[in-house]
């Protein structure tokens, strides 16, 4: 009996300690958990609920409309146009700004002087406020008094109406997007490059890897794998989320030529006050982005982490 009691006691002690640890763990995790629930989970759930209603901002109530918002979206010229525009924008901006960021990073890394200067120079677009830059861009790309077209005229080229022409507006926004993203990617790539062990380059030299291209293929590119995966995902997300240049420069115009998903979401919700409809767009957007990220991660992750 006595023996059994002692055994029970010795067993109970760790159990109590375990319970205490659990409580402390929850306590420590509480701020983050609460913030997550309050800032992300609850709004997301509210969004999902809203997406199936006709709620309008300021309206006293709402009706359930089931999939009504979604069927309307599928027939909404503006929405379909904005999906197509966003896809084009991402397909243009993401690859080019990743490649450009990498190329400039390699040039800066390979160069001997002015590394800090160039890094700061190319990073500038990232820290500059797009809204503040909007006036500058609208002036630079001005069809008649803009410096860009003046420059083109000087070399005998007729410049375009960059932001006013439905044929060039998406291209112009894309170039601005690349300008904004390449510097960001550049800094990430520079960090990735400095993390590559110097020994690998020495080993490659010993192994007879002579040209810069072979060195890039043998060492640099594979070693940048995890960085590249991160950069590609971040850039894709940033490109999909394009909003501020559109809002400040074109507001989706002319005639929806630069309408993008987030801007549609914004105008539906906050200009047209159709919160339910806007929530439906947001929901589709969230699902699409999540799926895209998962696929990207699955596809690339296996190739870049050499475990």
């Amino acid at each position, binding site marked *: 009996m006595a023996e059994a009691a002692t055994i029970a006691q010795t067993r109970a002690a760790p159990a109590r300690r375990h319970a205490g640890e659990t409580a402390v763990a929850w306590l420590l995790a509480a701020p983050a958990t609460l913030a997550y629930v309050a800032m992300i989970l609850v709004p997301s759930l509210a969004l999902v609920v809203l997406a199936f209603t006709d709620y309008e901002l300021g309206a006293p109530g709402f009706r359930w409309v089931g999939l009504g918002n979604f069927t309307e979206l599928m027939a909404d010229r503006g929405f379909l146009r904005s999906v197509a525009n966003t896809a084009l924008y991402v397909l243009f901006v993401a690859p080019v700004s990743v490649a450009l960021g990498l190329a400039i990073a390699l040039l800066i890394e390979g160069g001997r002087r002015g590394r800090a200067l160039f890094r700061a120079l190319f990073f500038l677009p990232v820290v500059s406020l797009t809204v503040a830059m909007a006036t500058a861009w609208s002036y630079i790309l001005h069809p008649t008094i803009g410096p860009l077209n003046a420059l083109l005229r000087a070399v005998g080229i007729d410049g375009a109406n960059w932001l006013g022409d439905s044929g060039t507006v998406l291209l112009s926004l894309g170039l601005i997007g690349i300008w904004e993203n390449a510097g960001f990617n550049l800094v990430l790539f520079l960090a990735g490059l400095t993390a590559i062990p110097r020994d690998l380059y*020495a080993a490659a030299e010993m*192994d007879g890897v002579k040209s810069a291209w072979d060195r890039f293929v043998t*060492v640099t590119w594979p070693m940048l794998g995890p960085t590249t995966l991160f950069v590609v995902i971040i850039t894709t997300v940033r490109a999909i989320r394009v909003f501020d240049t559109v809002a400040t420069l074109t507001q989706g115009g002319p005639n929806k030529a630069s309408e993008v998903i987030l801007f549609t979401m914004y105008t539906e919700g906050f200009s047209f006050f159709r919160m339910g409809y806007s929530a439906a767009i947001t929901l589709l957007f969230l699902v699409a982005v999540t799926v895209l990220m998962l696929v990207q991660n699955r596809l690339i992750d296996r190739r870049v982490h050499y475990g």
Partner: protein
Amino acid sequence: MAGVTIASLHKRFGAVRAVDDVSLDLSPGEFVSLVGPSGCGKTTLMRIVAGLERAEGGTVSIAGRDVTGLRGADRNVAMVFQSYALYPHMTARQNIALPLVMRRLGARQRLPLVGRAWPGTRAALAGIEADVIATAESLGLGHLLDRKPAQLSGGQRQRVALGRAIVRRPDVFLMDEPLSNLDAALRVQTRKEIVDLHRRAGASTIYVTHDQAEALTMSDRVAVMMAGRILQVANPTAVYDDPRDLRVARFIGSPRINTLAAEIGADGLVRVAGQAMGLAASARGAHVYALRPEHLVLAPAPLMQGRGLAARVEHVEFLGEALLVHARLTATGEDVVARIAPEDRNRLPADGVVGFVAAPGRGLLFGADEARVAAVPTAPMPAGARVHG
């Protein structure tokens, strides 16, 4: 088979002379260790030989050909790195094959997919595969070829790195502390494997290490380097028993050689704290007398009959195969270490006061400039005082 000739190499990093007028000759197939403390310039010297660093002066010749102006990739030199420097995205097979791929295939043949369509690619690839397998088998890696480095143990990675170096039969092997990332047991085993490998491959080898045990056990000759200069190049026995410089004497040997302030009187006898140490020299004045721990002959003070140096035992370390006796000289307060057989422990006096003399013919004499000074033994020791020898 190719020799290496290094002639008066110079290299500075800022104000630091990393390599300071270094010359070294390796005869074909010779295994030379570069040993020295961290920062002595041994790795820099090796990287200059490899072509990874450019020297500011001097020449490197391999097999009689001056390669000073050639880049590393063109020198037919292989190098094994401390970190192994394996390509983490490649399998062991691809790692070992890379030097062959880069040398035997043209740029176009190396293109993915289309490369195979080029004439001769298939044959070359088959040859590479055969060489890789032969190398891998000789290293016991046959079953690991499809693994990536992350899936291999430290010792296995080490062997892949060796395989990558030997697969293309280079003129010269360079090894930069290849064993320092292995645990002690594996290190001893791999030491032997590298020696075997070297014997089979027969290429001249420069082996950089800070571990004198590796240098002494593996090399044909040992080059002791300090502050950018090579102090002595000699076979392991000579470096140990006959160091030409006090710094070499101090660096080689563990525990460190004992050094005591000595005076050579008008009679030419070397005296420490007034006691003659059984050495005579033609030099006069203040010198350094050095004696390896295993060459100290200890006895309880009464047995010494007034000869030898009196010392008090501070503490005793048990190493298994030996005992290290740490003692302090009564006369000068200088510390000495003696290595004695474990069974002699109970012969140490209870009061800890001992006397010691040098084993016959074993003391070394260095000048104030740390250079070796010639000295000859005088009288032999009385047999009765012998405790250990």
